[in-house]
């Protein structure tokens, strides 16, 4: 616990020291909500009032918020790891009495927690702009977000493992960048995709996470009612966790053998 709090304090101090960047993240969140609002107004003029049982603004807001969460969860481990390499702090970190895994992943702790808080802040801001959460089941939403975070962290750890070994070039991020935003239903419902492409959507765990989150926040779906989304999401997560653990362990073993641990 003391080490987690040290990682958190270090992350906070480091992040807050770049004031413009720190403020910029919150400004970007505001602009993102505004973008959803403007897009909603445009679609309303075209006669689109509701998408999957909620206003298009609420639909977009949840999609946009989740994509931010997805981005933070997937990239943070690899990006902070790379930053440690560039700063030259990775080797000192790994020579402390801290497990190698924690030393590699700990620096991402603050940004992951901040990412979660940004999600909540974005939803609250959206509510001020008129998003309808009057029927939201916050407990179900929290469960979905928690399982998503674990799954995303697992993906992120696989991504960090690539960074550890190859320094740059991460196929995990390429795949997610290339397919996720189109296929998981961030900006439009998956159901409007051609059936052949929907197959890709349902092979991605994030599709279930986002669908479940929307159902919880817009329609107040209970955990039982979310079973169709929760079970595949849980299955993907359970499958990903050992893969993540194995990939990180293999990456550590490899760089300790090759001697390029601190290289970049």
């Amino acid at each position: 616990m003391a080490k987690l709090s040290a990682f958190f304090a270090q992350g906070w101090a480091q992040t807050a020291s770049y004031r413009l960047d720190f403020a910029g993240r919150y400004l970007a969140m505001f602009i993102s909500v505004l973008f959803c609002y403007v897009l909603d107004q445009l679609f309303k003029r075209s006669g689109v009032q509701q998408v999957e049982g909620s206003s298009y603004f609420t639909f977009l807001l949840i999609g946009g918020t989740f994509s931010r969460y997805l981005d933070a969860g997937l990239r943070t481990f690899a990006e902070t790891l790379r930053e440690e390499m560039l700063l030259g702090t990775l080797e000192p970190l790994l020579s402390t009495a801290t497990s190698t895994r924690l030393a590699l992943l700990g620096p991402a702790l603050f940004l992951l927690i901040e990412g979660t808080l940004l999600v909540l802040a974005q939803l609250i801001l959206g509510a001020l702009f008129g998003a309808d959460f009057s029927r939201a089941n916050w407990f179900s939403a929290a469960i979905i977000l928690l399982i998503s975070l674990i799954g995303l962290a697992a993906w992120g750890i696989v991504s960090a493992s690539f960074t550890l070994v190859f320094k740059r070039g991460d196929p995990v991020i390429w795949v997610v960048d290339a397919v996720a935003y189109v296929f998981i239903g961030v900006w439009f419902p998956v159901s409007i995709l051609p059936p052949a492409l929907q197959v890709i959507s349902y092979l991605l765990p994030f599709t279930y996470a986002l669908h479940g989150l929307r159902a919880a926040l817009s329609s107040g779906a209970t955990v039982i009612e979310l079973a169709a989304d929760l079970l595949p999401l849980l299955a993907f997560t359970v499958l990903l966790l050992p893969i993540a653990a194995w990939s990180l362990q293999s990456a550590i073993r490899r760089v300790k053998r090759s001697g390029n641990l601190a290289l970049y």
Partner: protein
Amino acid sequence: MDTVIHLDHLVKTYTSYGRAVPAVRDVSFDVERGELFGLFGSNGAGKSTLVRMLATLLTPTHGRATVNGFDIVRDELKVRSAIGLVASDERSFYGRLTCRQNLAFYAALQNVPRSKIAAAIERVLDLFNLTAKADVPFQSLSTGQKQRLNMARALVHDPPIVFLDEPTKSMDVQTADFVKALIKQELVGRQHKTIVFISHELYEMDNFCDRVAILADGQLKAIGTPQELSVHVPRRAIYRIEVQGDADRIAQQWRALSSIDAVTEISRGITFTAFDVTLNAETSGVWLQVLQIVGECGGRVETYRRVDDGSLRDIIKHFTRE
């Protein structure tokens, strides 16, 4: 004696483009508790690889080693708890955080209890004359101050063993002397820590380390006290001899002797002329010849003294020459 570092046929081979590149070849030695142990070698000799293995940052290809009684592969965390590592890269801090913030972070990762972190930080900042810089961002420090903070970090958890990989690199002479005195008097002399001091600079080790291991091309070439090592070196000796009489003639005749490598005139006064005479073997027979020539030339030896000190430089040169 109590062995705190034990290397048993340690080997590290890297692979580069499918080719095996040996970095450390079958190195075995022990370091005793409380020793100031020097690890010398030129660039690429394998020193840093060796230390990184002992610090658990690299896995050996073969062989084993223990640090403070713990195996470097099986007991990584216990090894890391017992060591402080000063890597030669002095920039390895979070630049925008203050010295205090940086040290607090590393102290927590080194299991220093939260209630003792502040005192531990004050102690090491004071030790390295950095108290005034405690709340200054790391990136504002001078290079020498950064390197001192690097050492402070290695000591913040008060480890019994410290690896110093070129700790005085980038320091001015005065700071380097201050740090070396601190190592010898405070860390080894008073706190009885075991120090492994790594350098590729010969002058760093002379009159400083208790024992020295000499690495060349990944192999341990020699180990011992400077005195022990000097026994193995075929010695030359340089004497400063002041003579009265025909200095040119004396020098010419000395140069003709096969036992004399060089004769260099150092100064010429009204009465005396001083020469540095390099003997390639120090025996009574050679000395007799040297003195005999002075007498034959009608001169007289006024003073003589040995001017080379049988220094580590000669010893290391001997063991590392190809």
